[in-house]
């Protein structure tokens, strides 16, 4: 329903643009139809629903929609109904900027939520900042985003990309010398999030004296992985670390399988946290590690309800990390809005920003607080596929299954 309304709005926009360029009576339509009245809160979102990031992008959409549904069931935000205005940026950096510009200046949304993946967050952070809006985002974990120094930006997950593997690193360091992997191969997509996680671990392992025997980087949309796989197989490292999104992880794994390379441990970012991953690879996922900001079993307030609702909607499966991070984004903004008591463009946004800088928010991924650049200060879990199911294996006090030290052959 919100989708239809939004389309109507955009149609006026373009009609306006057409006329505007022909320089015809534009003042009349320049205002757009600011219909976010007193009874609704309109939230503008741009997501990659097609293109490279479409699988995680869809996950984020499900998380946002569930959050809005649950808020509306409880009587809305500040007594106002929440409506999501979601646009598709096709995973393009130029499109995501145009989308937020349109949402903020043309559709005059009251709040915005972030897009998926660091690359798109990086592109959109500036436009949102220049309009002075609060920008809570579910997926911009890479250091470049925080270094840009936007004070309106908050990452709604437990840890930044460089720190995603911290528990795994600690675990490896505590292994007995003879069991510890002594060589590591890295293959990473040239993408800030994917590369950030892989290189975060690489820096730490190299410092600890564990040798890097291969380090391959490939551009997004690479489909032919046999060349990279040949080198990984040749290097034959004990630990294979993939800085991946989704499809590239599947392709890479199939390519190394074809060459019969069997690492003792394998860790990939993002892909193993998606439900599609085990559908695509079947039993071969066993023992694959991944950092995740979310655990369905974690005993945080509201988490149980969130897990239940996802199960209800999607055939009893547990929530994915992207769904959880999107839901968290909603929770963070909700907490700020309810504490400050406003949700509209203008001065209100700065109040929301200030409030978040000073407070801690309880979410499904645990209590979150941020430094001045928007970095969260908790840690990511380490997930492993055990008996075909994604289980939390680190840290041990949150673990739902035991760590498998030697990955079964894939």
């Amino acid at each position, binding site marked *: 329903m919100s989708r239809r309304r939004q389309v109507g709005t955009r149609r006026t926009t373009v009609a306006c643009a057409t006329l505007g360029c022909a320089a015809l009576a534009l003042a009349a339509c320049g205002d757009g139809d600011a219909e976010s009245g007193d009874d609704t809160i309109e939230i503008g979102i741009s997501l990659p629903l097609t*293109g490279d990031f479409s699988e995680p992008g869809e996950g984020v959409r499900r998380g946002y929609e569930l959050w809005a549904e649950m808020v509306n069931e409880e009587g809305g935000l500040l007594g106002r109904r929440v409506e999501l205005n979601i646009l598709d940026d096709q995973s393009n950096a130029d499109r995501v900027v145009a989308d937020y510009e349109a949402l903020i200046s043309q559709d005059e949304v009251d709040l915005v939520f972030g897009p998926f993946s660091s690359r798109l967050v990086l592109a959109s952070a500036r436009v949102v900042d220049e309009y002075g809006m609060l920008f809570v985002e579910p997926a911009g974990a890479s250091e470049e985003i925080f270094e840009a120094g936007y004070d309106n930006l908050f990452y709604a997950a437990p840890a930044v990309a460089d720190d995603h593997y911290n528990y795994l690193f600690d675990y490896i360091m505590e292994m007995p010398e003879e069991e510890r992997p002594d060589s590591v191969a890295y293959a990473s997509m040239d993408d800030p999030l994917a590369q950030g996680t892989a290189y975060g671990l690489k820096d730490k392992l190299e410092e600890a004296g564990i040798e890097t025997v291969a380090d*391959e980087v*490939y551009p997004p949309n690479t489909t032919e992985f*046999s*060349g990279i796989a040949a080198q990984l197989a040749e290097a034959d490292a004990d630990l294979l670390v993939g800085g991946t999104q*989704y499809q590239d992880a599947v392709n890479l794994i*199939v390519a190394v*399988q074809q060459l*019969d390379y069997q690492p003792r441990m394998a860790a990939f970012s993002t892909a193993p946290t998606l439900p599609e991953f085990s559908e*695509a690879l079947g039993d071969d996922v066993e023992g694959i590690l991944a950092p995740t900001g979310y655990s369905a079993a974690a005993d945080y307030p509201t988490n149980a309800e969130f897990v239940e609702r996802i199960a209800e909607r999607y055939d009893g499966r547990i929530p994915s990390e992207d769904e959880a991070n999107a839901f968290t984004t909603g929770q963070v903004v909700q907490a700020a809005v309810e504490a400050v008591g406003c949700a509209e463009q203008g001065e209100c946004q700065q109040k929301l920003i200030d409030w978040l800088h000073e407070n801690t928010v309880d979410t499904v991924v645990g209590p979150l607080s941020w430094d001045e650049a928007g970095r969260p200060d908790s840690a990511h879990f380490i997930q492993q596929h055990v008996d075909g199911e994604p289980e939390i294996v680190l840290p041990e006090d949150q673990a739902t299954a035991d760590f498998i030290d030697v990955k079964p052959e894939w």
Partner: protein
Amino acid sequence: MSGGLFLQSLILGVLLGGLYALMAAGLTLYFGVMRVVMIAHAAFLVLAGYLAWFFTTRTGLDPILSLAVTVPAFFVLGVGIRRLLITRLKPATMTMMSVLLTFALALVIEGLLGFTFTGVQRRIRTGYSSANFEIFGAQVAVVKLIAFVLAVVALGSLWFVLKKTSLGQALRATIQHREAAELVGIDTDKVAGYGFGIGLATAAVGGTALALDATIYPSLHWHWIGPMMAIIVVGGLGSIPGAAMAAMALGIIHAFLQVPLGATWAQTVFYVALFGTLMVRPQGFFGGRLAQRF
């Protein structure tokens, strides 16, 4: 480079080179019969890949069986495209305008694929997707070997048609000298139509072979346009054996360069070869005398 990696790269290069040869064969055939650079060829490859994927996910049968439908369908489509679109262009500006027209066709195909199947990346999953066997210490992926065999069979059939049948003779005559072919009584219009159909039919096979072991998505065709253009220019525009040899050579060089240079830089070999060929020998290295004039 160690011996193992050398052999591995060589095997990979040969297997991929065969696939490239098939994918480029149609492109050089269109040029031969019509002087048309068919930008949409890569889009048709992707379309065939999608049809194979769709066939497999719906029926659960092997994707190769989809060729029974796609090959004849693409042949008819090829004849139709030439008749209904290409022949409408004025002869004087045929080459330039056909580039734009087939470019438009590529956009429409990409858009319709995105419209129908969304932009999500797809991958055919078969029982032999990750299977392999060992030969002299190197691993050979079964699925790549199947794609290679498919390419060899298709190119072999093409060779047979061109060399051993009267249609093939007429086709070769049309490619070599259209006016002369007409003088000896060949209906070049009809022959060119068949040539176009055969070219597109090779796209059906090539696309299916490609999709066996790679992800497909609607905008994938951009990725292939460049390498395929390079192959047909290096091989000499209009020369199918030339394209096949250029594809094999570039495939192997590409596989070897990947080791020291990485995936992206290695890809530039196609364009370096293209520019080099045009600077040194614009008519291509393996036959063809057409490049400079068209």
